[in-house]
């Protein structure tokens, strides 16, 4: 065979050392489970995938991915059992199947506070524990509850110190688990609301770093009877005011010293809203349990039915989810490698009580 110039093939570039920046670029686009496997490739891959810098790069890449490949929705059914499904599938596919997930507090009753950076902050306590429409029938005793931060994607969790002053007794409180942008840490703050009377709510925050309590200033809501909930929209804490015919969504602009609120939009009640009544005797008949926005769309959960609200054309469509009985609580989280065991905690640690 005659050797032509062409057949003398140049050595492929991959024989040359691939620059680390290119490896980082490629790996940051992979799902968490694959990355855990690829730690086995070599010493340098193990070091890279374990590094805090890469964990952050990967988190940013996942969180900013407009296709939501690495976003999941975690659900809690009426018995308190957890399942999850892909957010992308829920938004774009006609039918989505929820899958069982493995978690360490299976033997406990769980109440979650919120998510940030792929971490879910939750409280758990001994069973038995009665639910009614997914909410505890009786209030949780102040003793016997534990708070932890859990990353379902890497299945690691960390118990947090107990908060003696934590008032978790109100039936309708919604907790927020914030991310402290300023200090680039997720210890952040816990936010929750408590009902004083009709139309009067308190919102409190508890700083996990220095264990201080603060009252959160609230916006001027205007007239009308409403039901208040807290949630997270993008990276902002939001207040959801549920009126009989619509819901207002207020976003907190600053986690700093001064608090600014901005009304983001109003969601009108769907015509068939009475089917989703949480409580027939309640004056508030429109009750979206859950609300979060990506690319302007708002995913809502009304008594076990997921709805996708599009503020652009004011339309609402239903998303079908199979393999779950009822679910009354849901959260969106992004898959991340953030290890809860490496969270800095500066406060007083009384884990052992």
């Amino acid at each position, binding site marked *: 065979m005659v050797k032509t110039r062409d057949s003398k093939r*140049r050595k*492929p*570039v*991959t*024989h040359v050392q*691939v*620059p680390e*920046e*290119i*490896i980082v*670029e*490629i*790996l940051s*686009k*992979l*799902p968490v*489970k*694959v990355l*855990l*496997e*690829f*730690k*086995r*490739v*070599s*010493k340098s*891959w*193990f070091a890279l995938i374990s590094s805090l810098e890469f964990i952050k790069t990967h988190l940013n890449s996942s969180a900013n991915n407009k296709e939501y490949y690495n976003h999941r929705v975690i659900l809690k059914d009426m018995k308190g059992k957890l399942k999850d499904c892909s957010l992308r599938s829920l938004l774009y596919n006609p039918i989505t199947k929820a899958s069982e997930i*493995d978690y360490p507090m299976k033997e406990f009753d769980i109440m979650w506070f919120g998510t940030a950076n792929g971490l879910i902050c939750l409280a758990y306590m001994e069973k038995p524990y009665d639910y009614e429409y997914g909410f505890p029938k009786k209030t949780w005793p102040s003793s016997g509850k534990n708070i932890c931060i859990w990353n379902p994607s*890497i*299945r690691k969790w960390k118990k947090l110190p107990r908060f003696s002053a934590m008032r978790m007794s109100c039936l309708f409180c919604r907790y927020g688990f914030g991310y402290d942008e300023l200090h680039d840490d997720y210890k952040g703050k816990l936010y929750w609301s408590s009902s004083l009377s009709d139309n009067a709510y308190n919102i409190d925050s508890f700083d996990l770093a220095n264990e201080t309590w603060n009252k959160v200033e609230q916006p001027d809501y205007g007239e009308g009877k409403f039901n208040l909930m807290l949630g997270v929209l993008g990276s902002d804490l939001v207040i959801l005011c549920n009126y009989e015919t619509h819901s207002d969504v207020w976003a907190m602009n600053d986690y700093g010293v001064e608090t600014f609120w901005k009304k983001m939009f109003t969601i009108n009640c769907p015509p068939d809203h009475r089917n989703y009544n949480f409580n027939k005797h309640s004056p508030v008949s429109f009750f979206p349990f859950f609300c979060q926005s990506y690319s302007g769309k708002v995913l809502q959960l009304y008594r076990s039915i997921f709805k996708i609200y599009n503020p652009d054309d004011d339309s609402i469509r239903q998303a079908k989810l199979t393999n779950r009985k009822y679910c009354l609580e849901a959260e969106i989280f992004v898959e991340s490698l953030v290890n809860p065991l490496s969270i800095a905690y500066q406060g007083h640690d009384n884990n052992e009580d």
Partner: protein
Amino acid sequence: MVKLKSNDDKEFEVEEAAVIQSEMIKNMIEDGCATSVIPLPNIDSKTLIKVIEYLNKHINMGKAAETGEEDDLKEFDEQFVNMGWEELFDVIMAANYLNIHELMELCCQSAADRLKNKSVRAVREMLKITNDLTEEEEQEIINDAPWAFEGPEIDDTVN
């Protein structure tokens, strides 16, 4: 027009509007260093032809959204990354060197998609990586998250 020269001494003329998608060349032009031929010692002509094809197609990216050509561009991108693994890597190295952000994103996503279902052994071979972990170290990594190593059959092929 801007003239580019590959490492196998082939010259290519490219419209300035297309070539400035490369941050590196854009800076050279702004600094007045692109008056004659720009030599690219790291890029062969085969790879450079691919890169220029991409640059010419993406010349008016901003306009595509207005004129409804987004789908067309998406289709082009899908076709564009339909190449062999080593060819793809050559384009990634070129895009990294020339600093063409969108091309880098596109090709790295394609590389990630190809690696996603591969076995650890296949990944090592595809990226020419020698395993320097001891058996004990590997076992330790598995023990840390055994569930991540279970699941459906993985792809052991290297293309």
